[in-house]
């Protein structure tokens, strides 16, 4: 939310316009417990003047009651009773703020290994992952695990936040060592664009303001960097059209049936030649209706309802696709899975419900191909099974065909979840690879070179 100081007010700007021209930025935090993620978010919100007076008064009162000498800014996001009692983050908290340059959604995710699945929840829709590292400890297993997950989920940018620099005497050498460590790991794990920033969330150095403690650092503070990051458009530029059908509308009278859904990739306009899968029937788009009526064209990720020039048999779970560039169609799926239930491990032979776009089918685990070593990003063959929070490559056989793309080409048609039928729990999250390539797997060269501000 745009919150300006009363002196500046909002009279000059049109209050009905959203702030910023660089668009929305979705951020997920990552890193180990006690690296200061919640404190950093609190500092960012506070110094960007996005904390309301009553919120600040409430956390100041709590801090004082606990005998703290200064206001504990982590209390701004740790919203559950159990979190405040234990001083840890258990589940994702979403925070919203805006600067004159941009609107932000921050998912503050937990650092504990047992809550990794909640970190994955926050990272799945993120444009940037802020990986926090305690300058005294350097990279630990959880920072590597989170960076690897961010890479697998193809979060486009990673910011390595080397925090608690005040506790290592603001040493440039300490910062460089961690930065180089991470660059080596990023290369192994196929992590793309990385920027490193030395900071102290507690004191506010290099969060919103540069501060004076680290004159050797020549880059912008964290917020400035986040304000200027460029985000690839959803669905990928120039992607082929994909419309998973969610719901069929049957207008009373003579109107054609409308196929409602959100465009997963590409764009649609009247006259486009399309193929409806899995039936394989072809036709043309007759009309595209947006939320306010007919439009000339609509693109991902917007919600639409389309009519076709022919009365084809189309129902929920079908996909209306570019006829020239249809997706893969098949029942044998090769995917990288993050396992998220403690109830039992993922093993060959087990069956689950699989939800992919608007289509839910049954899936049997054919093979666990390997498990990724989260410390190195390297595969360990002959894993046999995946336990809670483990990541690995799995082959599945589905009860009906899926229409899918590689996750690297299209997040929305390249991802699915596995649901435990007995409990209803979401047991796993998966991203689809094609042609034997594992998403961002080891050995795959990073597209962007690692970049640091020094």
């Amino acid at each position, binding site marked *: *939310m*745009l919150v*300006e100081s009363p002196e500046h007010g909002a009279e000059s700007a049109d*209050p*009905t*316009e*959203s702030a910023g021209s660089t668009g929305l930025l979705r951020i997920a935090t990552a890193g180990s417990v006690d690296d200061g993620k919640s404190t950093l978010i609190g500092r960012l919100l506070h110094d960007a003047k996005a904390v*309301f007076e009553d*919120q600040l008064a*409430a956390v100041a009162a709590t801090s004082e009651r606990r005998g703290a000498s200064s206001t504990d800014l982590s209390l701004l996001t740790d*919203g*559950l*009773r*159990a979190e*405040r009692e234990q001083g840890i983050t258990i*589940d994702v*908290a*979403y925070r*919203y703020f805006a600067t004159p340059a941009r*609107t932000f959604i921050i998912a503050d995710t937990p650092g504990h290994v047992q809550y990794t699945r*909640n970190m*994955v929840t926050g990272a*799945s*829709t993120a444009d940037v992952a802020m990986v926090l590292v305690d300058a005294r400890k350097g990279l630990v297993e959880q920072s590597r695990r989170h960076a690897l997950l961010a890479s697998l989920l193809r979060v486009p940018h990673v910011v390595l936040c080397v925090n608690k620099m005040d506790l290592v005497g603001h040493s440039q050498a300490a910062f460089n060592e961690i930065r180089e460590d991470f660059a080596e790991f990023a290369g192994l794990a196929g992590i793309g664009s990385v920027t490193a920033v030395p900071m102290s969330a507690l004191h506010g150095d290099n969060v919103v303001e540069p501060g004076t403690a680290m004159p050797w650092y020549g880059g912008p503070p964290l917020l400035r960097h986040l304000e200027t990051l460029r*985000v690839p*458009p959803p669905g*990928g*530029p*120039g992607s*082929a059209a994909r419309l998973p059908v969610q*719901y069929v*509308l049957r207008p009373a009278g003579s109107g054609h049936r409308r196929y409602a*859904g*959100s465009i997963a*990739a590409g*764009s649609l306009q009247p006259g486009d030649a399309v193929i409806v899968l899995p039936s394989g029937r072809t036709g043309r788009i007759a009309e595209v209706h947006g*939320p306010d009526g007919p439009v000339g064209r609509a*693109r991902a*990720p*917007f*919600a639409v309802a389309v009519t076709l020039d022919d009365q084809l048999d189309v129902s*929920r779970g079908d996909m209306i696709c570019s006829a020239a*560039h*249809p997706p*893969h*169609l*098949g*029942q*044998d799926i090769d995917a990288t899975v993050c396992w998220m239930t403690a109830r039992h491990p993922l093993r060959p032979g087990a069956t689950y419900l699989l*939800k992919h776009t608007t289509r839910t089918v049954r899936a049997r685990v054919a093979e666990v191909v390997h498990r990724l070593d989260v410390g190195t990003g390297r595969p360990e063959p002959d894993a046999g099974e995946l336990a809670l929070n483990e990541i690995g490559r799995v082959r599945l056989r589905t009860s009906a065909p899926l229409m899918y793309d*590689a996750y690297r080409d299209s*997040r*929305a048609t390249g*991802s699915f979840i596995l*649901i435990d*039928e007995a409990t*209803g729990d*979401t047991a796993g*999250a998966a991203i689809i690879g*094609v042609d034997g390539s594992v998403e961002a797997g080891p050995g795959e060269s990073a597209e962007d070179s690692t970049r640091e501000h020094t």
Partner: protein
Amino acid sequence: MTEAVTHVGMSARPSPREGADADPPPLPALLESEAIHIIREVAAEFENPVLLFSGGKDSIVMLHLALKAFAPCPLPFPVMHVDTGHNFPEVLEFRDRHVAATGVRLVVASVQESIDRGRVAEETGPRASRNRLQTTTLLDAIAEHRFDAVFGGARRDEEKARAKERVYSFRDEFGQWDPKNQRPELWNLYNGRHRSGEHIRVFPLSNWTELDIWRYIAAEGIDLPSLYYAHRRSVVARDGMLLALTRFLTLADGEAPFEETVRFRTIGDATCTGAVRSGAADARRVAAEIAATRITERGATRADDRVSEAGMEDRKREGYF
């Protein structure tokens, strides 16, 4: 074993509107589409959804989005008002007018009936409120009508426990929320699996802020109860808030009503919803006021959140909105 791989083709396709695709999508349109996606998904996957409609701005926006999601067809589920009996008359009038204009089916669940049947006991004293009693009425109505999905207009920016909640929030057979054990929720893949007697609360406005709501109301020209805009009224100052003088409010010793130009930032039970001093007479002016405010919506106006630091979390665990 038919593995029919058709074609791998996501290569760049020349488009006359390539430039437009590179532009970031505007935030209001993104939020609108996200909400419509969620609402359609629920209508497709659940047997018996219901949309909670209080006559407050968030539920009015949510209903507006739901009508858009299914246009030109009618709304495929009813709306439900949990009626505390302590309503502002303007809100009840608005509710009935709005229901008639939109043609939706209205279910009313009455807190007064829950009291009369002995399901809950009325609080007493000057700070008595029916706010907490609503939970029982709501859960009874969900069971009675066998609703399996319940749309709520809650937003994550409202309150710190709400900031933790999923879009699809699972409720057990007692209607309870277990915040330490929520289902992971990735991308826009929502898991609505539940057993008979359990239900899912669905929050299509999760990612909207108070300012987003007002900008949308202004842009769409959405009609709201008059209470949301500046008007003169008799109020009582209590706990740093201005409470409306209504027949439901019991004055404490030394409290003296006075006239003030106010508007309401939230509308709930008349006994625990405060007004703020304001001259904002239309949605654009309210949006400008919200953009400059230094106090949160609930902090300024809701006595129910001042019970304790975990007031909202505790009520939500019990099954509150």
